[in-house]
């Protein structure tokens, strides 16, 4: 049934956090509260979309990734990376330079994950043939979207495409390829260079698979800085390149419409987690009909908008589009990656298990109790001011009323209620200050140290 534990890659650095509540207001699943002056993420509600990371003013939200040095645990070190990685670099830096530098840094093999799209795309179209599919089929590509559906749209889990992602397929392919070349399996380390937090979470705690085929995730931002600096400092052009070109549709697959434009029937592409939620709401109500396929991406502009990308997303899209048009102009010879030779093997490996909902919307697992709590929460909400000021440490009056019935907060957390209680003589000034301190930390009401956290 529902998984009791979910690993998350997004964490709060308590030392850096000033409890400013920007993240609380940005979180699309209302997973964040402020307590003791720090942001606290509810593991059950977080879908690893990274909206909190984007808005944090003091870099207190961080992504827990693997240390780069971990790659040396293995003799053979495969870097799987998405095409958007190349898109981070300025145009004058050639793809071959990037490949070359990745080698120098310590990877023995390099593979752009979109090269697995050739196989995946065909499998998706075959998958669409099945008349028993719940329509629309929702792409399984974005790990934050899968988690969002499990948590917030549980009735749509059966709509999720049960085929793996390009990175998973690429990992299966490359591992098997090296094994076939005679390399012992325990000497092969597969690392995915990721532009997103949700992918790190998915690698550590996969959905629809028992264990991830990928051995570790590497923060794209960190690696970019390392590679770019080396390229800048390089004095000679030593090009030991394995750079092979991707098909146009492979380069563009992770961008908005990259996938939806390659499937059968009526397909729509939706990017940005709030837009996705708005649309899935309609799908769940069956307000929209006759859509065959939905490409949903948590980030705007797809993976170009990933939170670990240093470059502006529109410039990344531009660079990838230029890569495509350049390839077409040059009429480049596409040297085979050899992945098609593994088609049968990969078709088997890419099937995902049935996904389970893990709805976190409920007030109580016992319906009778949930009904009581709902009645109570409605009464409480009616007493709250309805301005969603967030001073209680919850993102909205509704959220506070539900926290109260779940036993996670009290009515006096509301500053308006506090004033009323003081007027009625039910609490004194000291108590009111103590409540504020509990939520916002002791420094917030000390003159001159409101934001410093000291």
């Amino acid at each position, binding site marked *: 049934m529902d998984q009791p534990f979910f690993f998350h890659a997004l964490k709060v650095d308590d030392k850096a956090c000033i409890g400013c509540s920007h993240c609380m207001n940005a979180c699309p699943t209302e997973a964040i509260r402020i307590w003791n002056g720090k942001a606290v993420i509810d593991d059950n509600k977080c879908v690893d979309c990274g909206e909190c990371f984007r808005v944090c003013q003091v870099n207190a939200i961080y992504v827990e990734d693997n240390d780069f040095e971990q790659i040396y645990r293995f003799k053979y070190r495969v870097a799987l990376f998405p095409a958007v990685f190349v898109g981070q670099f300025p145009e004058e830096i050639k793809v071959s330079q990037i490949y070359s530098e990745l080698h120098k840094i310590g990877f023995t093999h390099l593979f752009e994950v979109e090269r697995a799209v050739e196989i995946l795309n065909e499998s998706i179209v075959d998958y669409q043939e099945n008349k028993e599919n719940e329509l629309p089929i929702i792409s399984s590509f974005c790990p934050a979207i899968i988690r969002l559906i499990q948590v917030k749209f*549980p*009735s749509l*889990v059966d709509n999720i495409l049960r085929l793996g992602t390009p990175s998973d397929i690429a990992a299966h392919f490359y591992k098997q390829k090296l094994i076939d070349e005679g390399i012992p399996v325990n000497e092969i380390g597969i690392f995915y260079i990721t532009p997103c937090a949700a992918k790190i979470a998915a690698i550590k705690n996969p959905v629809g698979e028992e264990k991830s085929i990928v051995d570790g995730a590497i923060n794209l931002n960190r690696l970019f800085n390392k590679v770019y600096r080396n390229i800048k400092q390089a004095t000679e052009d030593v090009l030991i390149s394995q750079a092979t070109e991707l098909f146009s549709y492979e380069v563009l697959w992770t961008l908005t419409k990259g996938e939806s434009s390659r499937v059968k029937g009526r397909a729509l592409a939706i990017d940005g987690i709030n837009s996705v939620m708005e649309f899935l*709401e*309609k799908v*769940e*109500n*069956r*307000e929209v*009909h006759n859509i065959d396929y939905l490409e949903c991406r948590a980030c705007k502009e797809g993976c170009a908008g990933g939170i670990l990308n240093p470059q502006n997303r529109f410039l990344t899209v531009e660079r990838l589009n230029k890569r495509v048009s350049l390839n077409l102009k040059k009429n480049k010879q596409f040297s085979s990656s050899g992945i098609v030779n593994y088609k049968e093997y990969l078709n088997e490996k890419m099937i995902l298990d049935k996904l389970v*909902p893990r*709805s976190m*919307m*409920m*007030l*109580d*697992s*016992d*319906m*009778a109790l*949930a*009904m009581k709590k*709902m*009645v109570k929460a409605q009464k409480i909400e009616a007493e709250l001011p309805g301005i969603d000021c967030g001073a209680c440490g919850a993102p909205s009056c509704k959220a506070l009323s*539900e926290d109260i019935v779940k036993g996670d907060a009290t009515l006096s957390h509301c500053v308006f209620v506090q004033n009323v209680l003081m007027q009625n003589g039910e609490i004194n000034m000291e108590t009111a200050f103590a409540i504020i301190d509990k939520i916002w930390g002791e420094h917030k009401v000390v003159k001159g140290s409101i934001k410093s956290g000291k």
Partner: protein
Amino acid sequence: MMQFEYKVEGGDFTNAGNASSEVKKILKKLNVSPKITRRVVVALYEAEVNIVAHAYRGDIIVEIDTEKIRIQLNDEGPGIDSIEQAMTEGFSTASEQVREMGFGAGMGLPNINRNADELNITSEIGKGTNLEIITYLNKEN
């Protein structure tokens, strides 16, 4: 038992679906299974759109207890001439304008029926239509 009430305006397609969205949120909070939630919401949405498309105005009353969800939709409108005909798939009286908006494919009542455990309809020409949609919660297994 909990009760919720919603109002529906005839011709207001922009807000058609508000009641079903609200009810969906409630059922999720009450830990009603996704399958049953979906059935209830689909049936209610169709019924809500029926009022918007055909009637002048209507009331929706949703009653929830631990056994069942009972939804009553009472509208003031032209009424249904032949309930039997309206229950036939593909039969529609909708105007061209309504069809262009993706409504009125003649699947309304049949679709409600498919997604309800019980469906009761009474209608009086020139007065309005009353629908009762009942979904049982423990019928799933």
